[in-house]
């Protein structure tokens, strides 16, 4: 197990290096000059000299391979440079927003796991019953309704029914849990609904499949109680595939909820992403893409390790 983990961690290096190089060049082929946009974007008339100076200050006049070198060096030292747009260190810009996004992602994941798994199991066990039909309507709606629209409806609903709107400013959980939750529970619900729908549908089909396996018939032939058959013999096997989806969706949420954050006026990673793109802020964009890459790799690794714990057939050497 230990050596397997080491191998997997070593594999992370080439993966990240690939992402780093790819994102560096892809950003540079995007049309539009970041300095022009920054200084002249709003129609301001700035002299060519100022533009050149600014370019030099940000190091954009150097040859590409030098820039790449600095970028890779920055990766290792976790110094991603300064945002072209806000002039603050990139690490700082991300640091103040990552907590919020992480919290919303965790809250939606919790909502998804707590609702989706039991409901998915029920729908699978009582296939084609009224429970299944109701859940099917609810989950398909969850897949079809965009989370930002649901978010808007939540905000409007709260306002018109209770004349209450969630706090606008972010308070960290450790400062004031109630203020924090009363702001973040709504986006978490809006996003968690879709998340739950994805997981519940998967769990349902997985349960249906597992319940027709030969070993379930064996368990019944042993005379076990039906609940023992389901809990001990079916669930463990049925929830394995759900693990992958829960993990991947979670990593996806960490990449930021671009529109939902706008709707709820949250200052998170998703919004930062949009702003960085709008301002051609290479440094910030590069760092954000790397952050998402790291998140995906980490979550995938965790899911794989968890599989190794839950499924004895998988042996890591």
């Amino acid at each position, binding site marked *: 197990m230990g050596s397997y983990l080491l*191998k997997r961690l070593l594999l992370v290096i080439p993966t990240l290096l690939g992402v780093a190089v790819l994102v560096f060049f892809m950003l540079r082929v995007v049309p539009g000059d970041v300095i022009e946009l920054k200084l002249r974007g709003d129609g301001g008339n700035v002299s060519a000299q100022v533009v050149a100076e600014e370019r030099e200050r940000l190091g954009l006049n150097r040859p590409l391979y030098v820039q790449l070198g600095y970028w890779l060096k920055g990766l290792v030292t976790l110094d991603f440079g300064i945002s072209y747009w806000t002039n603050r260190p990139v690490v700082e810009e991300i640091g103040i927003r990552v907590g919020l996004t992480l919290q919303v992602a965790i809250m939606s994941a919790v909502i998804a796991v707590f609702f989706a798994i039991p409901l998915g199991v029920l729908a699978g066990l009582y296939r084609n019953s009224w429970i299944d039909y109701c859940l099917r309507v609810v989950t398909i709606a969850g897949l079809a309704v965009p989370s930002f629209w649901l978010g808007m409806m939540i905000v409007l609903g709260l306002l018109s029914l209770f004349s209450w709107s969630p706090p606008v400013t972010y308070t960290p959980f450790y400062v004031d849990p109630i203020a924090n939750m009363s702001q973040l529970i709504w986006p978490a619900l809006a996003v968690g609904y879709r998340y739950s729908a994805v997981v519940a549908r998967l769990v349902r089909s997985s349960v249906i499949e597992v319940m027709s396996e*030969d070993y379930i*018939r064996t*368990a*019944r*032939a*042993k*005379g076990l109680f039906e609940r*023992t058959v389901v809990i001990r013999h079916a669930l463990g096997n049925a929830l394995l595939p759900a693990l992958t989806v829960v993990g991947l969706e979670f990593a996806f949420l960490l990449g930021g909820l671009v529109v939902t954050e706008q709707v709820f006026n949250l200052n998170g990673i998703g919004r930062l992403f949009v702003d960085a793109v709008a301002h051609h802020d290479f440094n910030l964009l590069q760092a954000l893409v790397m952050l998402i890459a790291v998140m995906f790799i980490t979550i995938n690794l965790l899911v794989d390790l968890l599989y190794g714990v839950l499924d004895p057939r998988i042996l890591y050497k």
Partner: protein
Amino acid sequence: MTSKRCTDLLSVRDLSVEFRTERGAIEAVRNVSWAIAPGEMLAIVGESGSGKSVSALAIMGLLAKPAGRISNGQIVFDGQTLTGMAERDLRALRGRDIAMIFQEPMSSLNPILTIGRQIMEPLRLHLKMSVEQAHARAIELLTLVGISDPEQRLKQYPHNFSGGMRQRVMIAIGLSCNPKLLIADEPTTALDVTIQAQILELMKSLTERLGIALVLITHNLGIVARYAQRVVVMYAGSAVEQGTATQIFANSRHPYTRGLLRSVPRLDLPRARQLETIEGQPPDMRQLGVGCAFAPRCAYRTAVCAVAPQLIALPEGRFSACHHEDQLLAPVSASVAAREGARSDLVGADSNGDGITALLTVDSLTKHFKVKAGMFSQPAVVRAVQDVSFSIQAGRTLGLVGESGCGKTTIGRMILQLEQLSAGRVLFEDEDLALASGAQIQALRTQIQVIFQDPYSSLNPRIKVGDLIAEPLKVYKKTTTPQATRERVDQLLVQVGLLPEMAQRYAHQLSGGQRQRVGIARALAFEPKLIVCDEPVSALDVSIQGQIINLLDELQREKNIAYLFIAHDLAVVRHLAHRVVVMYLGRVMEVADRDDLYGNALHPYTMSLLEAVPVPDPTLERQRLRKTIAGEIPSPLRRVAGCVFHTRCPRASAECQENIPELREIRPGHFAACIKL
């Protein structure tokens, strides 16, 4: 009827089971009655869809809900009526008084729970044992079913066990609470012959010793003959005949049973030129008429068969459901005489093929697969095929037999150029395939064709049968006009015994036998010189197997096609092959002409294989001294030093581990690889 015997442990009376499907209800079991006494061994025989497994599931109360239900009849077990019993009472009986073993040992155990936990479950539940007691009993049970090192094995998971071992674990679970009745549903169908013999002997000795009644459900008549005291024969959901094994095998009183007995190639009888087969195919259970279900295929059919026959009691406690049972008084063995007669015309045809040049020669064929466990680990080498040489003459059949993992399928794939050779040569008409140009290979592909094992998955479900057969013709431009293609397809369909209209159907609209005929028609499209037949009949029902075997035989005689016939069924190979190669773990053990091999097998492995096959004759089976070969086939990943068979060989000694025995000519034309010869 049978239920009158007051000593019955289980009696099934007029049992009918119905399945509701989207296309209407199907009566999968129709008015079946039988009974089993304590400690008795009863076999239920039938082909797929005959309702034999469904009736067992009905007894257990395990019919798939809500589609399946018992629509009629009564099941009485040990004085209790199971039909209509509350689910909780039935559940308490399951696993305690009635246990069941299933066909698929690979999937019948929960992959994520330890073996120990799965064996201890019924003990804890039904016998209220403590964890310690259950653990001790589980060790005892594993020892009982012949698994060594039980304490350690209990902590392992199903994937650590081979198929045979898993079936032993299933038996241990079945016997755990000392049941009164054990139902085994095709317990050895998925296993190799030598392992099958081990498992059946184990079940027989344990149930006898513990006084457990055994219901053995199988399609294998040899197994029935060897193990069963009484037999119920099922066809299309009905029990058509019942009696003692001796009665059924020696003097069956139902045309279906008779046909079944005649249509299997047998090792204990002289080889017949042609198998007598039951024509046609089992009925569609959705469209069963009121008459006798077997009538459309029956040689004795008359007008009265339009009325369904009742199971009528005959003397000596036997039953038959046939209006014409009185015409069936002559013993079955009459057909043996016919076989003897048929044999004389064989001698000329089968004389040794010396002097004919080889059509296909394989020389020191070797295939090693590298198996990588992970990205960084050293790949392990599987020696799938090692130094195999043989040749096939035009118009003749070479049989390639062996158990799973022996490399027989890989050889077929290498000949078809579907697999790269690791070493060795394949010569077709003296042309080395490795040296042939791309165009030559293309041309050769039309000369060497293939028939696959599984007619269900080897035909594309979205393409019409006619287009499936026409496709190679179009690709190779063998026919120029659509009209010519259509005519050729019709001609091919007729050749394999199908109707030209079937060209318009899709594969799922055909039965298994018909699909295999389509596979054969496709292979015939180019008039090939060689067809690689990879287990072409093993997925088919017994009565259909005979038809396909006869078809292959006829085609060979008509068109002078050579076959490489790959199979695990020794009797089928004996029926078709002129020369036979026996393989074990990638190596050739013995090569000889058919009669020589089956009459005077030399290699200990061939002998064990032949001994392991039960023959459909109870009298003979009971006289046979059964020496089941011990042990399992070693993993191909493990390299066995010396002779690959020494780990299981009854004659092995220390020197067998030192050198790999060479294939030597022991008698003229008869080669074996064993130092003891």
